């Protein structure tokens, strides 16, 4: 293979290009924050997961301690089953509870782990039953309206409804 006087420049070009790809992956993307630690699987059951998605974070005190792996529906208990991978370096007590919280007002939803007070720690395959579901806006509104109606004056419509039925 003949040597060319352009070889140096081509090598430099390829190096610059590869450097740009590396910059995009590391600085602009999140390659370095990818966790290669060992994890153990844990399952949590929720009545309503709201907008929780796979690969959402599991945080405790605001720090990421795990990831949501998959979300499925259990048709025996009619609850959502969320499979999470918790990092092995953090041990949580067996009676820890999980809540679905929102990061910021319009942000993505994540799972917040509150540690319990048990002596034994969670192991792989544990099921978390103490859970709090996501806040669903419609339920909140209907609750608010119900409370408002309960506080309001005695409804005169109640009496007229009875008259209407009699007729």
């Amino acid at each position, binding site marked *: 293979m003949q040597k060319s006087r352009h070889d140096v420049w081509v090598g430099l070009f390829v190096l*610059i290009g590869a450097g740009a790809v590396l910059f995009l992956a590391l600085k*602009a*993307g999140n390659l370095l924050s990818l966790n290669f630690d060992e994890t153990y699987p844990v399952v949590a059951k929720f009545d309503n997961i709201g907008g929780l998605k796979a690969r959402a974070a599991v945080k405790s005190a605001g720090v990421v301690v795990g990831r949501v792996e998959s979300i499925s529906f259990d048709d025996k208990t009619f609850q959502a089953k969320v499979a999470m991978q918790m990092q092995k370096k953090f041990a949580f007590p067996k009676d820890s509870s999980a809540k679905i919280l929102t990061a910021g007002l319009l942000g993505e939803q994540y799972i917040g782990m509150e540690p319990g007070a048990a002596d034994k720690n969670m192991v792989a395959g544990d099921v978390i039953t103490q859970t709090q579901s996501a806040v669903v806006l419609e339920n909140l509104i209907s609750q608010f309206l119900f409370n408002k109606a309960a506080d309001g004056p005695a409804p005169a419509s109640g009496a007229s409804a009875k008259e209407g039925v009699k007729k």
Partner: protein
Amino acid sequence: MNWFNPVTVGAATREWLTDVGDATRLFGRLLAVAGPTLRRFGLVTEQVFFVGNKSLSLIAVSGLFVGFVLALQGYYTLQRYGSAEAVGLLVALSLVRELGPVVTALLFAGRAGTSLTAEIGLMKSGEQLAAMEMMAVDPVQRVLSPRFWAGFISMPLLAAVFSAVGIFGGWLVSVPLIGIDSGSFWSQMQGGVEVWADVGNGVLKSVVFGVAVTFIALRQGHACQPTPEGVSAATTRTVVLASLAVLALDFVLTAMMFSI
């Protein structure tokens, strides 16, 4: 050509189909001689210099200005919703997912594509390709294939440089000029840009665009009329076809990659 005369329409259709078939055969030839070409890598390196290195300054400066504009426009719109600090994320995602591969491919078609077409067209009109065939040297293997692999190698690198310089340009306008917090600029970006889903897909797009643009340029040069007018028409056709192909492929690839 009389569009209402079925004879001319039929003849034109047949001619166009023959053209497409010929182009497909050329693509097949290019893939078939890949082995011998890559073994003689010095030829490919030479072409990477002409096709890649020489386009670097154009791509870098364009990337810088596109980054400037993205940051400015992004800031004007985002600050109406109180989300001015997401401008880093906006610039990075726009560049890495779409603008990097597409604009680089369009610029590449205009700069390197036209030079490839003109060079091959002139070689054809100067009967150099025929002379090579007389000497039992396959012109596809000796001339076209190194340029094809040079385009294949250079495009992803150029697109990455475009995106990287664009992000830097966006940073320049946002942080020193407008005054957005540097920490939020980078942390919002790092939180929102996925490596494999965004950067990886962008690189994949640029590879596909590189193949498309380089192949169109080589094909137009190889199949042109061996006259000065023929070469000039082929050069124009390269830019038009390559640009349309890049934009159409962009839609198809985006639909495949970023579907929910």
